[in-house]
Structures are given as C-alpha cells and as structure tokens.
C-alpha cells in the first residue's frame, strides 16, 4: 500500500472520530428543551427509516415481499434471528423462482 493510501485511512479515521465526538457534545444543547427532547428521542427511529426506506424502494417486488415477510415474522415472534433468516430465505427462493433479478 502507498503512503497516500495510509494517509487516506488516517484522515478517514480522524474524521470519523470528530463526527462522533461532535455529535455527542452537540446533543447537550438539544436535551435542554421539551421539544428538543422529543427530537432527540425521534432520532434513532428516523435515522433507521431514512436508511431502510430508499434502499427498500430500490429493490423491487421481491425485496418488498421479503421485507413484508420479515416484518410480519418480527411482529409475531419478536425473534430477530427467525425474522432475518426468513427474509433471506424468501429472497433466495424468489430468485430461484425467477421473480427477483
């Protein structure tokens, strides 16, 4: 690996740590107000939604079927292993059946 590539790694690592520490200390200002508290509590769910929904929409019908199955399994069993593997299996079967690309 070249020096430049190691420099990139070091730069990315420093940046990542700065982002995290920055967020931690910026959070202090949010906590002070009731509406700030509500924002604060909403962050985890909203972040995951923003991560999942665009990804899901780009996956087509097979992805939606697998996602629906995962959601139903999770709702019914509250067991993440079963639900995740159910979605993976559905995705594999849909590909075998030629429904998914």
């Amino acid at each position, binding site marked *: 690996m070249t020096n430049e590539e190691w420099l990139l790694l070091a730069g990315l690592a420093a940046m990542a740590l700065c982002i995290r520490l920055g967020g*931690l200390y910026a959070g202090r200002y949010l906590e002070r107000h*009731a509406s700030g508290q509500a924002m604060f509590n909403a962050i985890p769910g909203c972040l995951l939604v923003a991560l999942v929904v665009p990804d899901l929409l780009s996956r087509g019908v097979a992805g939606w079927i*697998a996602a629906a199955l995962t959601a139903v399994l999770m709702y019914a069993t509250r067991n993440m292993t079963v639900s995740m593997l159910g979605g993976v299996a559905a995705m594999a079967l849909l590909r075998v059946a030629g429904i998914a690309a």
Partner: protein
Amino acid sequence: MSASLLSFDQMGRGARACLVPGLAVLVFSFVMGALAHQAHWSLPYIVAFCLGITGASVQAIALQMWSNSADLMPILVAGFAVHLRYALIAASLRGVLAELPFFRKAFALHMTSDSSWAMTIADERRNKGTTPAFLFGGSLVIISAYTLGNVGGYFAALDMADMRRWGLDFAILGVFLCLLIALWRSARVDLLPWFVAALVACLTKNALSGGWYMVAGALAGALAAGAAALHAGRKARAAAAAEGAGAVERT
C-alpha cells in the same frame, strides 16, 4: 460502577444482543473483503481500516472511489457524507455514556457501529438504565464480526453473484427492519416523524450524492417530532389555562 466499560455481566448482555446483527455483519463484510481484495488492498490495510474506521459505508465509498481517482479530498468529503449520521448516533448515546470520563467515552464511541448502537437504544427503551458496558460488549462482537468477515472475504474469492443467489444481500436490511419494529413506540409519537424521514430521504436520495440523504431524512423526521411536541405542549398549556380559568369561575 456504571462508569466502567468492562462490567462483564453487562458486556455479555450486549454481546448476546448483538449476535444476530453480528451474523448479518459477518456475511456483509465477507463481500466487502472480497471487493477489497479485488481492489488490491493488502491484508494489514484491510484490518487497519476495519479497526480504525468503524463504518462499513466509509469502506464502501473508499473502495468505490479510490479505483476511479487518486485524489484524497473527494473521498474524504464523500466519507464525511456517509458517516455524518454517526453524529446523530453519538448524540442519542449521550444518556448511556454520560458517566464515563472523556477518553473512555471517545473509545466507546469509536467502537460503536450501527448495529450495536441500535441494539443499545432498543435495550434502553425496553429496560432503562442500559450501561456503557452493554454498548461496548455489543460493539466488540460487531467489530470482530466485521473484521473477521473482511479477512475471510479477502481469502475467499467470492463474488456478489454468489451472495445474491443465497439471498444474503438482504441480511443487513432485514436486521434494520427488525430493529425498526422493535423501536416503534406508538402511531401518535412515531407515525409523523417516520413518514417525514422516509419522504425526505427518498426525495433527496437522487438529488444529493453520498449519504447526505440519510442525514437529511433523519433530521427532517426529528424536526417533525420536535414541532409536534411543541404543538402538543402548546395545546396542553392552553387546555390547562382554560381549566384554570374554569376553576377560578367556579370558586
């Protein structure tokens, strides 16, 4: 006591909670390792990357962009964009990390990944009083899985087609879906912010490069939650005032 990262009991709980996400991460990072091998990354570089930057999306960006150009700056900017959500992740961990001294806080944050964060928040919502050791134990499992997966992928010349045939490209998304269902509180509290987050993320995904859309969606959803709380607070105060006026009239 709770200022320690090394309470084995708590670490064990966190580690167990992260086993399933860890499995998904293992599978996913296997692909990353194979891709890194194709991009001629050396094994020490891969391991240093896994341990130095705890974020798979940064690795994905670096892998994708490094082969196209030799400029550092665009990669740093794109890495910043995909990693910025960790500012929100860190902010939401304030309560859990509150009692730690600075360097332990920084270390715990450095080790945190999407999955160990999400399992920690889910535990906090359910049980309250989740300790930093819970987060740390979970993070250790995820980082180990991530590094091992990368190393495994480096040695196995596996390609994306194999992963897709087994449906494994769904694994991470599946875990996040499960977490969303676990994090759902009620329609009254969550419906509006989640809808706004999804809408803004989808609308901005094509307009903004990198990972800005995730940050934009999350911030918009959080702002919606804040606005809703402000509105509810005002209504409650108005109702209380009306009640108070009624009480005065009655006396």
